[in-house]
């Protein structure tokens, strides 16, 4: 009963907020609706018993990705009239993407229902004596270790690529060297002299 209420609550909010992402007039509001959608998707994951995925969804998407979105959207000075004007121009492309996505979803669900994966395996209860972090960990670090490492390497290459592409060497910048600063002692920088009258100090 509680699960049923929770499922319909989360599902409704996911769909409604996903729609609001598109319909909101203010881009910052759009990002906020997107965050709400992520959140409720995480709720659905919890109901499916995948608490690890749910938490990762919140940490990665809400905690990091959406913050970056929000950053970009806030920094840009967006002209709303101009955004509206592009609507008709991008409509065919948008519709194409939407149709492809919908077709893929229907195809995937159809393939699932048509069998191929044995029904008994699909409906088999999950091993409950282990938390799903442990199950995922055991699979990722044994059976799928090479795929896992490959994914890591792809991410590393992407990161280095992003740095290489955006990095530019700026000449003539005086960089602060903190260790040199903290190493410096009064003896290195000052000198005590006792000049006689009328003699002055050698600098």
């Amino acid at each position, binding site marked *: 009963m*509680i699960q049923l209420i929770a499922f319909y609550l989360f599902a409704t909010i996911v769909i409604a907020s996903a729609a609001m992402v598109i319909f909101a007039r203010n881009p*910052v509001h759009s990002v906020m609706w997107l965050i709400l959608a992520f959140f409720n998707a995480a709720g659905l994951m919890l109901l499916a018993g995948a608490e690890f995925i749910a938490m990762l969804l*919140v940490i990665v998407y*809400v*905690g*990091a990705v959406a913050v970056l979105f929000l950053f970009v959207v*806030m920094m840009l000075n967006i002209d709303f009239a101009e955004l509206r004007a592009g609507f008709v121009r991008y409509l065919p492309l948008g519709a194409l993407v939407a149709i492809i996505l919908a077709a893929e979803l229907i195809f995937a669900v159809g393939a699932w229902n048509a069998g191929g994966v044995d029904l008994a395996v699909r409906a088999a209860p999950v091993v409950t004596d282990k938390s799903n972090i442990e199950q995922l960990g055991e699979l990722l670090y044994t059976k799928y270790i090479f795929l896992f490492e490959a994914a890591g390497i792809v991410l590393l290459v992407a990161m280095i690529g992003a740095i290489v592409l955006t990095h530019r060497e700026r000449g003539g910048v005086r960089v602060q060297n903190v260790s040199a600063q903290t190493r410096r002692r009064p003896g290195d920088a000052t000198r005590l002299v006792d000049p006689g009258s009328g003699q002055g100090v050698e600098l």
Partner: protein
Amino acid sequence: MTEFFQSLGMSYEWAWGVATVAGILLIALPLMLAVAMIIYADRKIWAAIALRRGPNVVGPFGLLQSFADGLKVFLQETIIPTGANRGLFLIAPIITFTVALMAWAVIPFNSGAVLADINVGLLYILAVSSLGVYGVVLSGWASNSKYPFFSAMRAAAQMISYEVSIGFILVCVVLYADSFNLNEIIKAQQGHGLGIVNAFGFNLLLFPIAVIFLIASLAETARAPFDLTEAESELVAGYQTEYSSMAFALFWLGEYANVLLMATLNAILFWGGWLPPIDWAPLYAVPGIVWLFAKILFFFFVFSWVKATVPRYRYDQLMRLGWKIFLPISLIWIFLISGWLMLTRYS
């Protein structure tokens, strides 16, 4: 608690619902009271270090100062700037406050005394604390004012930077404790140091990251010396500049609830949580909650002590500390600890 309500003749669903609501109230209401008193304590400690008296007028020893402040703020008018984005302006403090309370759901106060005993407790805390940044960023943007916006940008960059090293530190603790569940983490600390000390912190391998975690939690809650988001000498009051009345009070309460949470996390992750400090039978006669509160108060004292004595960091120094010092150290420490555990525990 569900069983108790079931024994009163309720069905399981109702008993569960009532028990959960009762549990939430049992945590949230004392927490609010604790926040009020901790603000008073903060000001008193500060005052003592600065050789002042601190609040001493309202009630005996000024104990009711926070309540007087609360009443004052409650009676103020809520001012919403004309250019502000109304909805987000009002939602932002609510987000900060709610998120500060949410994380307490998985904090164990004694063996088994926890609202939600989930096996991803630590991840839940990480997830919730990563939400905290939204309150600040939104309030800064929705205020439609320069200083709050600067403050919001600073806050976002600061919190994300330090969350990275906090995440890695948590991984080290999880590796040692073999669980994400906070209760299991505490139990793993029983007799950890030489078979007598109940704390990860006394392990030589974990002590350095315990220190880093303490400093990073100062930065995560934007306490001095990392309070650049509300640096009054540069940004007026940072993201709270345009706020008044209850909206402002919610920021305040949320901030201090977060500080308490971080003190609690320090106590739980590295210093044994509700376990007594020494694994010695007579000490277990004292209820675990007393030990936990003593540890929380100690870390809160450290927080105010630092606030009263350490000058504020410059922003580039803050970023340098986060990315160039804490991040490499915590990464190296994961290698060290997993290597050590491979050698000793799993070989």
